[in-house]
């Protein structure tokens, strides 16, 4: 069984509330967000308990960001110090986990990241860069992990993480969330299941508004945990949003602090990274306390919201059947995953291409993408993305991105380099990027000034 279950040692905790950072003074992502959580977990004395060790956050390096994102025009333009610290915190815990200093860890940090996609023109859904994806790529590059499972327990679809690992069969992304018909970002349906080579390694479980502890634990017990048993990842990571809570102002679910704690106990992730959650007084202090306790193997049964009684929310029969049917659908996709891949590949040629439109709600940017993945018989294949960011009627930036995967074959490496050389001469683009994950080298070429920058 993957995850931290049965492992000995402490739970690592990084608490970085970014008390001096906000998107804007009254935005949900503001200074006050983790204030009451701080009060609660400090008053509980959790950091003093022998089961828990607190770590100081560090800044992620720009290279850690470039390993995941094509930041336009460059990494410095998309991240503030707060972003680097939030991302860096996850890496500090990764190092502690790998060195055996801790058995599991929780990066209780902001700003969040799971709506950020591969190309970053601006802020989407309160996120600029994807902390979880940065963590995954760091763990693979530095520690050579192959298979990783990311479970997104935020109420919103983890569309950024999904998009980043869309073509990667070794990263299993499972997101359960409030149905995209009724909530931002409007995606995360069952039929979104990954690129041709990674079909059913992206799994989405849309849930009806009002889903309770019972419904979410049904999904966990009957779908997520069995799938993890089969997938056998090296590590299980939790994108731990807290906005499924029954008091969250941005969503409509009915999950409780106890439900969250129990989820983390059963899932026993190796690392948890905070995502959203905006009921800053009524949910976060209790949910975070519960998650920390569950991860540290402490008794969480005393955590209870002031207005919560067990049995407060009862799930209707209709809702129960709806959830069971969704779970059955997703289960069947997972069961035939290898067939799905075979069929898809048999219908495709050397390249798989798709067009995407991405909307950045926070920064009001529209992005148009054309993506191509080489379906190489000898390696995961290189990827190219041509992307145009627009605000209003004006074009912000037209960029071309090339990504060479880890363990790329020599043909793919050569061809990707050719693409780079060809496109840096193309005046249509303002920036051309080469993300070489195999050599852990990242280049940005400014077509106008003919300057090349590397991370």
């Amino acid at each position, binding site marked *: 069984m993957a995850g931290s279950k049965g492992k000995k040692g402490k739970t690592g905790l990084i608490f970085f509330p970014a008390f001096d950072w906000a998107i804007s003074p009254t935005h949900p992502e503001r200074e006050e967000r983790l204030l009451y959580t701080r009060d609660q977990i400090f*008053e*509980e*004395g959790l950091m003093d308990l022998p089961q828990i060790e607190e770590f100081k956050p560090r800044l992620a390096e720009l290279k850690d960001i470039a390993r995941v994102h094509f930041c336009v025009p460059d990494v410095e333009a998309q991240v503030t110090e707060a972003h680097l610290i939030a991302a860096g915190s996850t890496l500090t815990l990764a190092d502690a986990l790998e060195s055996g200093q801790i058995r599991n860890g929780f990066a209780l940090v902001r700003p969040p990241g799971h709506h950020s996609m591969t190309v970053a023109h601006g802020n989407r859904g309160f996120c600029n860069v994807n902390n979880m994806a940065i963590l995954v790529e760091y763990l693979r590059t530095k520690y050579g992990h192959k298979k990783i499972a990311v479970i997104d327990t935020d109420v919103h679809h983890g569309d950024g993480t999904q998009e980043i690992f869309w073509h990667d069969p070794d990263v299993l992304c499972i997101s359960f969330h409030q149905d995209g018909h009724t909530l931002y970002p409007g995606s995360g349906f069952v039929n979104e299941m990954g690129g041709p080579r990674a079909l059913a390694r992206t799994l989405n479980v849309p849930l009806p508004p009002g889903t309770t502890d019972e419904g979410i634990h049904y999904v966990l017990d009957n779908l997520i945990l069995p799938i993890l048993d089969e997938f056998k990842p090296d590590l299980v990571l939790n994108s731990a949003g807290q906005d499924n809570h029954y008091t969250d102002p941005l969503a409509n679910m009915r999950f409780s602090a106890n439900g969250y704690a129990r989820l983390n106990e059963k899932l026993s992730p190796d690392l948890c990274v905070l995502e959203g959650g905006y009921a800053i007084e009524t949910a976060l202090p209790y949910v975070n306390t519960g998650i920390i306790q569950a991860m540290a193997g402490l008794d969480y049964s005393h955590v209870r919201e*002031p207005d919560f009684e067990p049995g407060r929310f009862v799930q209707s029969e209709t809702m129960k059947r709806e959830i069971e049917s969704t779970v059955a659908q997703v289960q069947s996709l997972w069961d035939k995953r290898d067939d799905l891949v075979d069929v898809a590949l048999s219908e495709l040629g050397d390249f798989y291409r798709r067009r995407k439109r991405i909307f950045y709600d926070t920064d009001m940017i529209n992005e148009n993408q054309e993506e191509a993945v080489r379906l190489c018989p000898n390696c995961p294949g290189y990827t190219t993305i041509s992307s145009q960011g627009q605000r209003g009627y004006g074009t912000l930036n037209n960029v071309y991105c090339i990504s060479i995967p880890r363990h790329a074959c020599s043909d793919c490496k050569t061809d990707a380099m050719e693409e780079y050389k060809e496109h840096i001469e193309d005046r249509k683009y303002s920036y051309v990027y080469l993300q070489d994950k195999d050599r852990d080298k990242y280049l940005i070429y400014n077509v106008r000034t003919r300057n090349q920058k590397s991370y």
Partner: protein
Amino acid sequence: MLIGIDVGGTTTDAVLVEAGQVKKTAYVPTDHQNLLNCLLEALDQIIAGVQPSRIERVVLSTTLITNMIAEGKTDPVALMLIPGPGTNPQDYHLGDDTIIVKGAIDYRGREIQKLDEAGAEKAAADISARGFSKVAIVGKFGQRNHAHELKAGEIVSAAIPNAQIELGHRVSGQLNFPRRAATTMLTAATKEKYREFADHITRAFEQRRISCPIYILKADGGTLPLQTSLEMPVETIFSGPAASTMGVMALTPPDQTSVVVDIGGTTTDLALILSGKPLLSSKGARVDSLLTHVRAFAVRSLAIGGDSAITVSGNCLAVGPQRLGAALCMGGPTATPTDAMRVLGLSGIGDLGRARKAMEDLGRQLGLTPTEAAQMVVDAVVDKIVSEIRQMFLEWEEEPAYRIWEIMQRGEIEAQNVAGVGGGAPPLVPLIAQRMGARPIVPDYAPVANAVGAAVARPTLTLSLRIDTERGEYIIAEEGVTGKVGDRKMNLEEAEKMARRLLAERAERLGIGEYAGEAEVTYSEVFNMVRGWSTVGRLLSVRMEIPAGLLTGWERC
């Protein structure tokens, strides 16, 4: 004239300071069975021939509370907790005499569950039946709203006449419920015996016709009038390291960064002075197995000193942690660093012949000349101390931080001085300083630095003010005071002004009003509370402190 007396682990030191100069010193071996006697013996030596009326101030630093706790001689205490939702109180391991009462206050001081008064009555009856006369009552977030603690206190005092009751919010305004519980419990457990001790002291001083104010030194390097300290006996714990650090501050140039190295017979204590300010441990002192809110200097202790036993296994040499007795050169049973330093000419203490013999024996086992063996011993001691200092720096650098600017700004520590006190300091401090690239300082009065520190330390005081303008309230936990705030848009500057005024009043009540002007804001925060898309109020917290420092008029040597 100022008098400082430090009752330490092995000796009791006293100094008489006049016009910025140490005029007289005294040493008495500490008798742990009778701390009062050795304190008075040191006092009598120091005041012999002195007009009592010329003594302006006496400061005492004692291990009384430390010993009491270490030897398990504290009084039994029943702990009544009002924990509300959160951690299972059993996970705090606060002892078997813990009773839980229902009721809850939240992080903003709002009552979220009424106090179960019937439950509290039952608990009180139970406590009474079990024969406790001392009760600590601590509620989670009691520092934000002490109504439950007060009510529970009334219930207990009705059930147990003459009970000594301590309430958590009076002990600390800081967040951390289990630490507040532990500190409150220790306060209840030591108060009575501490009062007896203080009464003896008062009487003894009266007999000697010394009528000047008597102060006690606290773990944070500050002094408190003896009478006031009766309310907070636990604060006097670990005053020894505080005394030596204050002594170094008194005996070295101001505003510099120094490592304080106190090298004794069996242990070496390390402390830090950063830009002239002693470094406090971030959360509070550990007392025995309990984590507390007691503000104390960040001190690291390592089991190595002049009398540590040297052992050899194979080619390896180890110094400490045991002490088998004095050094060979002092007639003891085994080779020690003191013998090595004697052989190398780093010190003149003890018999050179015996020291040489010790190093010859050691050299034979290691295949080295006596001088080489001695050098190896001294290197080992210096290595150990230096690596512990580096570890201490690292720990400071790795302290968690919750704001961007704190993370961006915190750099590496560079020590300008290594200041040594204690018997082992003079020969070793230059070697440690050389390794650290710092200046060695061994003050003239290094052996009595503790007593000097006590003599010239000024009072310290903390006040935590919390304002919630949406609820229109302010609270000062330590004072048990609450009040109304009318201005929803109160800003930090106004809050700090208010804290300064309240601190001055508190200082006046505690008999240290003349130092209120030294108060500074050590922590402050302000958060706009936004509900929906509009600001409905502000949460402001200000911690105001008179920090550790030296009496004005103290001339540094």
